[in-house]
């Protein structure tokens, strides 16, 4: 038993934190609110050069061959920086999906290009009908029934551009047609692909939410130490202290739940989907709670767009309800732990629980 990360895992995450501290400042995030795509190609290149973009691509395809335990802290760092790019989609979901479930031709075609930073991935699934980053992604991973397809963006039509509360997130619907050449997996394998990818996406979002929550708390503690009212720092008042203590409690107890889910996925644990759902439920709840505390303790300044807090809050709101919200994931834990509602009529096992519940 040892519940801690290796020095190598910690060092990689720290290096990513340092890189993002210089190339993904709040000013940079604002640029993505204002530019045409919501994307910085230079930053993606830097992340690829460091190995972040290809970290889950197998070594044979030019990546680092890392697993969920290796990336969970890195994804947390991308949350802390409110990185706009689709790192969850590309690193947590896309590359492992192609490597684990895709036919050789697709893996050979796409994985080296992902590792090199030349291909960005956007993902659609039943809980997430709109594709983030599809406007500049090169490869779209699209679900249709029990099939998962890898489709070049050039072959689809983006429709219904949506406006997110988070200005750095550009969401699209997609109009496309299945072809045999794009099939990653179908039938039983398709369900396994879809479910495994959903769990990875939910874990990736949970890790980012922990980073976002931590960042908002850190900003708020710093502000509460500095801001004076009634002749004293507002952080010396108990009402403010208790808000912030509750925020820390939420983050610190969500954290090991998220890390355990990474362990369960990395080791193929029997309860991995339940563990991921616990992680997403806690992380969504923690980030939502911390965002409210952060705004309240900042007062009116936090309510302005000039102040940076809203950049992080809005990302947290978007991610909290993406990849299944807290209530959906709690119910998935309930099905695993409690079973169906006692006395309810027995129902046939649902072959596509995500589709039924989330569509």
């Amino acid at each position, binding site marked *: 038993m040892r519940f801690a990360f290796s020095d190598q895992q910690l060092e990689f995450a720290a290096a990513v934190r340092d890189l993002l501290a210089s190339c993904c400042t709040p000013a940079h995030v604002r640029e993505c609110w204002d530019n045409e795509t919501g994307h910085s190609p230079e930053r993606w290149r830097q992340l690829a050069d460091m190995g972040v973009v290809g970290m889950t691509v197998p070594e044979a395809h030019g990546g680092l061959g890392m697993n969920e335990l290796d990336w969970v802290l890195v994804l947390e760092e991308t949350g802390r920086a409110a990185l706009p790019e689709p790192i969850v989609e590309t690193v947590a979901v896309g590359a492992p999906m192609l490597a684990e479930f895709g036919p050789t031709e697709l893996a050979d075609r796409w994985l080296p290009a992902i590792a090199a930073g030349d291909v960005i991935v956007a993902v659609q699934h039943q809980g997430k009908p709109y594709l983030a980053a599809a406007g500049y992604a090169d490869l779209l991973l699209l679900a249709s029934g029990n099939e998962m397809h890898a489709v070049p963006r050039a072959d689809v039509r983006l429709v219904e551009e949506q406006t997110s509360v988070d200005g750095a997130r550009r969401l699209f619907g997609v109009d496309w047609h299945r072809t045999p050449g794009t099939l990653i997996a179908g039938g039983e394998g398709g369900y396994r692909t879809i479910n495994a990818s959903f769990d990875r996406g939910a874990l990736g979002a949970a890790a980012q939410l922990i980073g976002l929550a931590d960042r908002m708390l850190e900003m708020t503690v710093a502000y509460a130490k500095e801001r004076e009212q009634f002749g004293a720092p507002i952080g010396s008042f108990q009402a403010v202290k208790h808000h912030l203590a509750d925020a820390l409690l939420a983050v610190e*107890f969500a954290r*090991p739940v998220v890390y355990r889910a990474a362990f369960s996925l990395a080791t193929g644990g029997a309860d991995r989907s339940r563990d991921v759902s616990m992680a997403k439920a806690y992380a969504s709840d923690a980030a939502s709670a911390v965002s409210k505390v952060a705004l309240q303790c900042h007062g009116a300044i936090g309510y302005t767009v000039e102040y940076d807090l809203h950049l992080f809050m809005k990302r947290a709101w978007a991610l909290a309800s993406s990849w299944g919200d807290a209530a959906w994931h709690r119910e998935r834990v309930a099905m695993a732990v409690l079973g169906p509602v*006692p006395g309810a009529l027995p129902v046939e096992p649902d072959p596509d629980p995500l589709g039924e519940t989330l569509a």
Partner: protein
Amino acid sequence: MDLTWSDSEAAFRAECRAWLEANVPASPLPSGDTADGFALHLEWERKLFDARWAVVSWPAAYGGRDATLWEWLIFEEEYYRVGAPQRVTQNGIFLLAPTIFEFGTQEQQDHYLPRMASAEDLWCQGWSEPNAGSDLANVRSKAVRDDAAGGWRLTGQKTWTTRGAFCTHLFGLFRTDPDSERHKGLTYFLVPLDADGVTVRGFGRLDGDEGFAEVFLEDAFVPDANVLGGVDEGWGVAMATTGSERGLTLRSPGRFTAAAARLVDLYRRHGHGAAPSSREAVVQAWMDAEAYQLYTLQDVTRIVDGEAVGARSSLNKLWWSELDVRLHEAALGLLGPRGELIDASPGSVDAGSWMKGFEFALAGPIYAGTNEIQRNVVAERVLGLPRAKGGR
């Protein structure tokens, strides 16, 4: 990271489980916070001691098994899983003992620890006074030097002392420097309750048990050998004890994961027609217990690596005490109109243990430093926020 148990840990678990399943009383004992129940619990404690399960993490010389912290967690998990009796010795073995291991002289360790493990000496805690609850540094009970007799004369009143009426000894803080204020000038004393000048009066708690006591001291003599740590240095010694109380040694996760498992069982029996919000409360309570378990595994890894938990133990206390209340609320929510039925009332479920447990859980956010104090500690000592002008 490796969240699996080793073969030797699995073997330790199997050994705990086998002994406990063979020896735990078939039907639950009456509350150990009543006179009759306490006596029955003492028999159980002595049985545990004879089989060397009373203090698994202690050295063998004092009755333990030199178990690792991981093994201790496993023992606790198995202990609560089989529904073994509450530990009426807990204030000694979990709160005082770590302090004696840290601050006690060799003589004190050799004298007190074996007698504590065997439940010969039964310890209660003498922190609170009528005017020193959350504000522990406001202690007024005093110790006056008696050079001729080679010791100290204690005078004052301690209160809300759990199981004080059934115990043999008290550990507590007394003011040795009459000119001192707040946390200075306090000394940590080990006091036999049969000393001349000590009077103990039991009184009832909200849950109906007479588990509280007040302890009156009037010129009660204790020798120098009964000072734990240095004279006038009691605050630092006491803080080590409160760290244990808030943190993991008093409330291991096994207690809550076992309670959560019982809640799941209750849901299966009584969840028919439960509102969706009740189902959600049940699963959240189960998750909260699981989260406490995971948080603890992370903390124990840090301790094994040599890091101090320090003020973070206040986060522990906030979590387990508030999860315990929510867990029992979820249970009472499932019981609906039968939730209020207690003891052997004909309609009661599980002998009314959920209401009793709820009442007990409600004490959690109060004892060991109220949760308001814990939130201040977290804010000031973990987050580094400034102290208020003029104290609280």
